[in-house]
């Protein structure tokens, strides 16, 4: 009963009219902006971050969570209507979703995606409700060495699991940590890398980094692609799946939800991997796999349930350990820090209202998403019909003016532009901005934990071996770093021996 009391109180927090309103606004705005091609959840959240300033912490995070799953669904809409996945986790939705749209069943595809997202998301929130406090309870005994190892593992896992070049991802992560060092040293108060610039003495604001790299960087990148004109979608005729289609997709939704939940907890591309895995599973269990890619509704239901479940379960490491599992969670982490809240094991016990308020808001937000998704299809089609040439400067101005309103500082607007250019160049040169942002938010925890550990160990690094959790985490870290190298070497050796065999 003790467990359920704060959970129920959390519902009281969400159901306050103000919080409900912001939850609604978050989901709606997230969906509307997320539907714009090229702007996924991370970019949408980054651009809209300033909207959350000046609001109570609980309300702000409820709204951001709403923006997050609203934008997540927005990516599905473009996948189905335009064959343009808003993000990597929506790629497989294109295969059958677009075929369904071509057959005049776009409404059914979007409807089943909304229902699947709702069920997947809700199942993951249930898991989050029971699992996050358990993990947080376990992590309460963590000291600086454990946190140092955990944050190191978090940064490297995300960098190495990410889809692009692993070494470049690690370089981006290292630069992210370094940039976070700009400003006053928390231990001694010494100014670091500020070049006597007053605006830098408080450090670089996380919001400017996120808005620049994710928001403006993405817009500049899309600007280069503008010469390729975009198709205008037609408004779907039938906007709700039939009972038969629901029955057909129900098992896929169930399987996708479980798979997504489990894979989402892992750091890295949980949502992407889970949607791909769910598609593979559905194709494998289908009586007639040849239907897939030709408009099989299970090909939409499974992956969409999985990626939403994964997106929600990725809140578990963030809220219970204080370690963001992906770039979007890094944004959530930054938003919490801005509100003066440090995510981690103490969050459940110290801020139960916020923790349970945010967790329970996801139930409500998912219901709102389900209610709004279908009736708003016409609006989405209208938004997609507006030429990108008109939408782009509007999004740019939202970003720039938003950046100004954070601290009423033109310097910050300049920094957003600078990070926008860096973000664009990173994309062009194969560096992913995600690891940089993630490392940027984890840097303070990493540095303070490492320095505290060194003081604790009095310089004797052998002390690490007296702490089993730290040793285990560092062992996993070494595996993460060296496994890809071993795999590559093994692959080369096998190829060599095969070619020798062929020659002989």
């Amino acid at each position, binding site marked *: 009963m003790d467990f359920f009391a704060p959970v129920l109180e959390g519902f009281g927090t969400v159901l306050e009219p103000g919080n409900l309103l912001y939850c609604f606004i978050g989901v709606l705005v997230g969906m509307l902006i997320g539907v714009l*091609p*090229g702007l996924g959840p991370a970019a949408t959240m980054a651009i809209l971050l300033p909207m959350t300033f000046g609001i109570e912490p609980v309300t702000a995070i409820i709204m951001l969570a709403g923006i997050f799953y609203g934008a997540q669904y927005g990516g599905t809409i473009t996948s189905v209507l335009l*064959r*343009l996945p808003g993000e*990597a986790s929506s*790629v497989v939705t*294109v*295969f059958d979703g677009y075929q369904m749209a071509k057959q005049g069943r776009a409404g059914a595809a979007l409807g089943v995606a909304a229902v699947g997202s709702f069920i997947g998301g809700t199942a993951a929130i249930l898991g989050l409700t029971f699992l996050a406090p358990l993990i947080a309870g376990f992590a309460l005994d963590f000291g600086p060495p454990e946190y140092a190892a955990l944050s190191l593992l978090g940064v490297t896992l995300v960098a190495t699991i990410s*889809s*692009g070049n692993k*070494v*470049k991802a*690690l*370089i981006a992560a*290292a*630069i992210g*940590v*370094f940039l976070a*060092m700009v400003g006053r040293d928390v231990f*001694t108060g010494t100014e*670091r*890398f500020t070049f006597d610039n007053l605006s830098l003495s408080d450090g670089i604001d996380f919001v400017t980094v996120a808005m620049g790299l994710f928001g*403006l960087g993405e817009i*500049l990148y899309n*600007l*280069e*692609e*503008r*010469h*390729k*004109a975009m*198709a*205008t979608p037609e408004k779907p005729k039938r906007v709700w799946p039939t009972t038969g289609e629901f029955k057909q997709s129900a098992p896929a939704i169930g399987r996708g939800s479980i798979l997504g939940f489990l894979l989402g907890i892992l750091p890295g591309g949980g949502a992407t991997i889970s949607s791909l895995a769910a598609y593979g599973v559905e194709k494998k269990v289908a009586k007639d796999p040849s239907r*897939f*890619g*030709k408009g099989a509704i299970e090909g939409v239901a499974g992956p969409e349930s999985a990626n939403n479940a994964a997106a929600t379960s990725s809140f578990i490491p963030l809220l219970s350990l204080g370690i963001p599992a992906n770039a979007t969670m890094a944004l959530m982490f930054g938003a919490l820090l801005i509100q003066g809240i440090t995510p981690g094991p103490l969050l459940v016990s110290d801020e139960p209202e916020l923790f349970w308020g945010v967790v329970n808001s996801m139930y409500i937000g998912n219901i709102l998403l389900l209610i709004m998704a279908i009736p708003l299809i016409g609006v989405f089609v209208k938004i997609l019909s507006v*030429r*990108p*040439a*008109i939408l*782009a*400067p509007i999004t*740019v*101005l939202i970003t*720039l003016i938003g950046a*100004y*309103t954070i601290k*009423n500082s033109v310097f910050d*607007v*300049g920094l957003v*532009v600078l990070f926008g250019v860096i973000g664009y160049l990173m994309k*062009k*040169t*194969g560096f992913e901005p995600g690891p940089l942002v993630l490392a940027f938010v984890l840097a303070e925890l990493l*540095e303070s934990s490492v*320095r505290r550990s*060194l*003081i604790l160990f009095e*310089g004797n*690094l052998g002390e690490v071996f007296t702490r089993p959790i730290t040793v285990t985490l560092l062992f996993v870290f070494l595996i993460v770093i060296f496994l890809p190298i071993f795999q590559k070497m093994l692959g080369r050796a096998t190829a060599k021996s095969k070619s020798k065999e062929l020659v002989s």
Partner: protein
Amino acid sequence: MSMTSISQTDRTDVDKPDDGENRPELPATGEEAETPEELLALWEEEAPEPAGGIANLVACALTLAFGIAGMILSWNLSLGSLTDPAPGFFPFVIALITAVLSVAQIVLGRRGGDGEKFNRYSVTVVWGIISLLVFVIALPQIGFEIPALLLSFVWMKWLGGESWRSAALYSALTVAAFYLIFVVALRTQLPHLF
């Protein structure tokens, strides 16, 4: 599959800008792709050309320079000792890691690395960046209205290929909407003329 290649998938010429004569279209492709395999092959085919070894070298030389500069700056802050690390200690280690990884990538990626080639449309981005810089410089001097109007117009007309009429109309409407939201309704301290 990277996001990079996804964002450049099928875009037919249905929504051609009003006066898009100076915007050469790529041929509309993709309607023939039916299966996921065909679709993936199509995305692969339409993916931009890889950046190549020189781009990898230049990019990693920059990150190497960043690492070396970081090491020098951190050294100047003093490193301290393992028992009592000074403010420069941790940044030095991170800068060192950046430098070492950059060298590794220069060697590993000498035959290509990732990324995509700059093309003739990359010039559009340069103009976009210049317009952003003009906005940042002009904002504190003359308020946001004129710079925002110019930025919108440039992005719509020259970078987006809209007609004079629609660029002028939508730019004016955009700035008016921003004025009403940020100055009148939210009463932010955004510098403004009127």
